[in-house]
Structure formats: C-alpha cells, structure tokens
C-alpha cells in the first residue's frame, strides 16, 4: 500500500527483493541493464512521476533500449539489408573473415 508501507512497518520483505534489477541478486551476478536502471532511478527518485517523465527521459530511453534493443536490431537490420542489396548488385564482396572461411584466431 502506498502510504501505509506495511512491509517496512512489519520489518518483513515479502516481494521487495524482486522489484528492482539493481537490487541484491543471488550469487552477486549483476543484471545486464544494471547500470542503466541505476542511472534512471537515481535521476528520477523523489521528484514525482510527472517531473521524472520530463527530466529523465534520456535515461529512461537508454534503459528501455538496453532491455529491448529495438534500435540496435533496426540498425543491424538496415546494415544487413544494404549489404545484401550491394551483393546482389555485385558492388560488394564480403571479406574473408565474414564468410566463415578464415581461420578463427582469438
């Protein structure tokens, strides 16, 4: 409950442990978007939702992008489309390390 905060009053932790990716994780393994979430929360804490939506939009967009990677996938897709188009037109040949024929060295 928002103003009662029953769990703090009773000193128990029923579900607060799973609310945040940036909280304490088992085996101390950090989440993939830990940094982005931490930044967003630090930016938007205590200023109310209306202000947070305006002022922390960049952090929120970064966090959202980290979680869903939509812009990343669109970008990669565009590059791949363009490459296939160029290969079809014959203007581009992929180098050896991109065709799987070069030997794999670390």
């Amino acid at each position, binding site marked *: 409950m928002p103003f009662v905060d029953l769990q703090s009053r009773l000193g128990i932790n029923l579900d607060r442990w799973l609310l945040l990716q940036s909280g304490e994780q088992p085996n101390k393994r950090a989440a993939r978007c830990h940094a982005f979430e931490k930044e967003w929360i630090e930016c938007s804490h205590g200023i109310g939702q209306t202000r947070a939506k305006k002022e922390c939009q960049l952090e929120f967009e970064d966090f959202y*992008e*980290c979680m869903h990677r939509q*812009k990343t996938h669109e970008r990669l897709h*565009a*590059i791949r489309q363009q490459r296939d188009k160029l290969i079809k037109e014959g203007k581009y040949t*992929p180098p050896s390390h*991109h065709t799987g024929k070069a030997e794999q060295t670390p």
Partner: protein
Amino acid sequence: MWGRWSAATVFLYQRRRVSSGTSLACFGGGWRKMAGSKVKQDMPPPGGYAPFDYKRNLPKRGLSGYSMFGIGIGIMVFGYWRLFKWNRERRRLQIEELEARIALMPLLQAEHDRRTLRMLRENLEEEVVIMKDVPGWKVGESVFHTDRWVTPLSEELFNLRPREELLHKRFGFLWYV
C-alpha cells in the same frame, strides 16, 4: 455239464496264474485261494535290506541371525567409511579445479575482450564500406545517449558473419532442447 465245468475251471485257472501269490480264481461259481504256489515273485534279498535313515535330518548349520546382521551392518559401515573418505577427496579435487579456474580467469577474459574488440573493429570498417551511399547514416553511431561502455550483443558482433556462427555462439554448448 460236469465236463464243461471242469474245462472252464482249467481254462480260467491257466489265465489267472500270474496275478498274485494268493491268487483268487474268481469265476461264475465262487472264490478259491491258491496256497503253496510255485510262482516266481520279486522278493527282498535274503537277510533283508541294509538299514537306512528315515527320520528327519535338519542339522543346525551356518551363521546365526545376529551374526549375519552383524556382518551386513559391518559391510555397510565399511562402505560408508570408504564413501565419505572418497567424497572428501573429491571435494579437495573440486576446490583445486575452482582455484585453477580463478587463476586462468585473467588470461581468458583478456582473450575474450581482445576478440570482442577485434570483431567490433571489423564490423565498423565494413559498415563504413557498406553504408557509404546511404543518406543520413552516421557510421559507428551509438544507439545510447550515454558514452559508457555497453557490452555488445552477440547479434552485434556476428552481424555480418554467416548465421551459423551466431547460432554456434549462442547454442553450441547447449545439450538440452
């Protein structure tokens, strides 16, 4: 009539002779015992048979129940002792393996990082070549507003490589479906 009767008696007498010691010749008239017959029969040897034991013979032999339990429990205890000893040894070996992993971690992490950076660099150079004529494309543009290092996805690293390599990276170690 008498002649016929005596002939029948002789006939039946001859038929009946191999049946038993005291043969009872049984025919229409009545019963008649044969005493003192010279019939060949299967008799015991003279002096009788040798004695044999006919009473129950269930000798007490083997271990008692308590000792069998004792032997079983003893074998079990020995087995447990050996098991615990070997488990302690396995724990020591497991700790040694973990220590080896910790010792090798810098090397493996460095190799992995070099490989990641190399692949990113190659992708960047190819991107320059490919997207040369696309209007409004900024090469190497980060999708994030921050300039923190973001660990690249496997899809980013293997973008321009055959799809099989990406699948191998993601699912190569997986045994279950």
